[in-house]
């Protein structure tokens, strides 16, 4: 299947900057994929997303979204994408419905009319459905400033889906949300993905949010450091290991050496699996153990390791 996002040799150097903010990166995203762009602050995430969403012109290279060039056919690209910005993009003094209405008119879905009651029936039905999904049938005509943070975020997502974008960009969408709102929001995004098959392009600092991504791309200093599925990224960079200890460390040390299992004493024994299964190792060891812990890396471990290596 033709990728829905194709980025080729993309480079951006800001005016008067001495280095490239984004430095010759290439990647592609398949339709329906859940794609994560990770990296520390200043790595080039926002620059990349700005170019893909056509608000910034690249210095070199190209980006194709839904079959359109981000520079030459910016308008066509915009019609096919939805964006959730890092900062809230709602007008606080306007009602939820007005925020949705203005969006819908800007995307050319309906003509502008100054009151909800005057808008076409199709629009009103749509708003009604959306309000029902969020459970805010009553509050939809209240000013946004009366909404909770989590509710505002959901409203932004709903609004961005009203023009049925093929790609949804989420730029650190859960920044500043409490854990419950965060979980709720992700539940909601998963539902949307399942129902609409929308491609999701995410940047985030919460690495647990990337665990069920299809592909992860980690960038640092404008370059791609790692790319692949979460399992691949983790397997590539972080070893799974067993943590063992025994009442008699002497025997355990001897036994591990005899079995040719590489280990590190910390002073507990850290044994890298190196492809072996936990089961096989445990079966081979006769020394009575006092500690047995398995350790499989999280995305966060992988991320920190990757960026640690970069620095060194």
């Amino acid at each position, binding site marked *: 299947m033709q990728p829905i996002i194709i980025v080729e040799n993309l480079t951006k150097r800001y005016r008067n900057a001495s280095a490239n903010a984004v430095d010759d990166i290439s990647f592609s995203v398949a339709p329906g994929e859940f794609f994560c762009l990770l990296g520390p602050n200043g790595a080039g995430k926002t620059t990349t997303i700005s170019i893909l969403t056509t608000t910034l012109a690249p210095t070199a290279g190209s980006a194709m979204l839904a079959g359109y060039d981000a520079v030459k056919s910016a308008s066509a690209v*915009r019609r096919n994408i939805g964006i959730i910005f890092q900062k*809230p993009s709602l*007008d606080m*003094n306007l009602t939820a419905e007005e925020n949705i209405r203005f*969006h819908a*008119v*800007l*995307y050319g879905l309906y003509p502008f009319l100054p009151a909800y009651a005057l808008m076409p029936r199709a629009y009103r039905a749509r708003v009604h459905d959306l309000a029902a999904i969020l459970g805010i049938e009553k509050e939809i005509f209240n000013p946004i400033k009366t909404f909770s943070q989590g509710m505002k975020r959901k409203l932004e997502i709903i609004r961005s889906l009203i023009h049925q974008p093929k790609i949804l960009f989420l730029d650190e969408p859960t920044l500043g949300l409490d854990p419950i709102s965060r979980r709720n929001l992700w539940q909601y995004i998963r539902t949307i993905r399942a129902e609409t098959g929308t491609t999701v392009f995410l940047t985030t600092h919460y690495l647990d949010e990337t665990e069920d991504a299809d592909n992860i791309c980690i960038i640092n200093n404008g370059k791609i450091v790692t790319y692949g599925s979460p399992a691949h990224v983790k397997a590539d960079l972080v070893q799974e290991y067993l943590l063992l200890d025994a009442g008699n460390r002497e025997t355990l040390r001897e036994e591990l050496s005899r079995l040719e299992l590489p280990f590190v004493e910390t002073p507990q024994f850290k044994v890298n699996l190196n492809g072996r299964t936990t089961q096989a190792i445990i079966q081979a060891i006769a020394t009575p153990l006092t500690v047995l812990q398995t350790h499989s890396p999280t995305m966060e471990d992988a991320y920190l390791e990757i960026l640690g290596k970069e620095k060194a």
Partner: protein
Amino acid sequence: MKEFNAVITIAYRDLMKLLRDRTRLITSLIFPFIFIGILGGSLQAGLGASVGINLLTFTFTGVLAQTLFMSASQGVISLIDDRENDFSQEIFVAPISRYTIVFGKILGETLVALVQGLGILVFGLVLGIQFSLELFVAMAPIVVIVCLFGGAFGVVILANLGTRRAADQIFNFIMLPQYFLAGVFNPIQNLPWYLDILSKLSPLRYAVDLARGVFYAGSPDYRVVLASPLVNLAIIAAEFAGFLIFGTVLFVRRERNR
């Protein structure tokens, strides 16, 4: 048609934002009230008799034009930092032309300025400034022209400044001298030649003089007017077109090539 709808949406949003924000609505009227009420009132009380014209009316007309002009241009300039705030972020990524954004913003800020203008008008009536219905009707298109002119002037500044900080610093530098060069509070009939040149370069001068030309039509105080409204209109039309074309092209180019 789509772009037209977008222009109206952007403009309507600006107006709604003002009307829903009571604090802003009130604070936007404080400066004009200070200028007209205190400055105009004291000038009239102290000097009015010896000068032979009503200085309260003089200040009122000047401040009316100046407030509308400045409010509209400042509103347009706010596009600089708006792109990273509230709904404006949506506007910048919507599938609409950049020209649509500029036009919508000028129109919106014109509406916002007109609301302020209405407040100033009421204040003037309270202070006892004579305002017939005919005069009101004659002034209506003039104030709209002044607002649009201010908006276009804002686009030029917007296009030449990169950041909000720069805009805030430069804006005062560009606006404050114009208050005096345009004769908002002070008569500028007899300026030394160098100030006269600066005055003629100041766009606000034509906005203020146009407003006075129509306001004072047929009154003995018409002698404060510098040029016929037709002359002012012609100059404003030419500058408006220049500002709009030059400013918008520059803004659109600059917006993406950061």
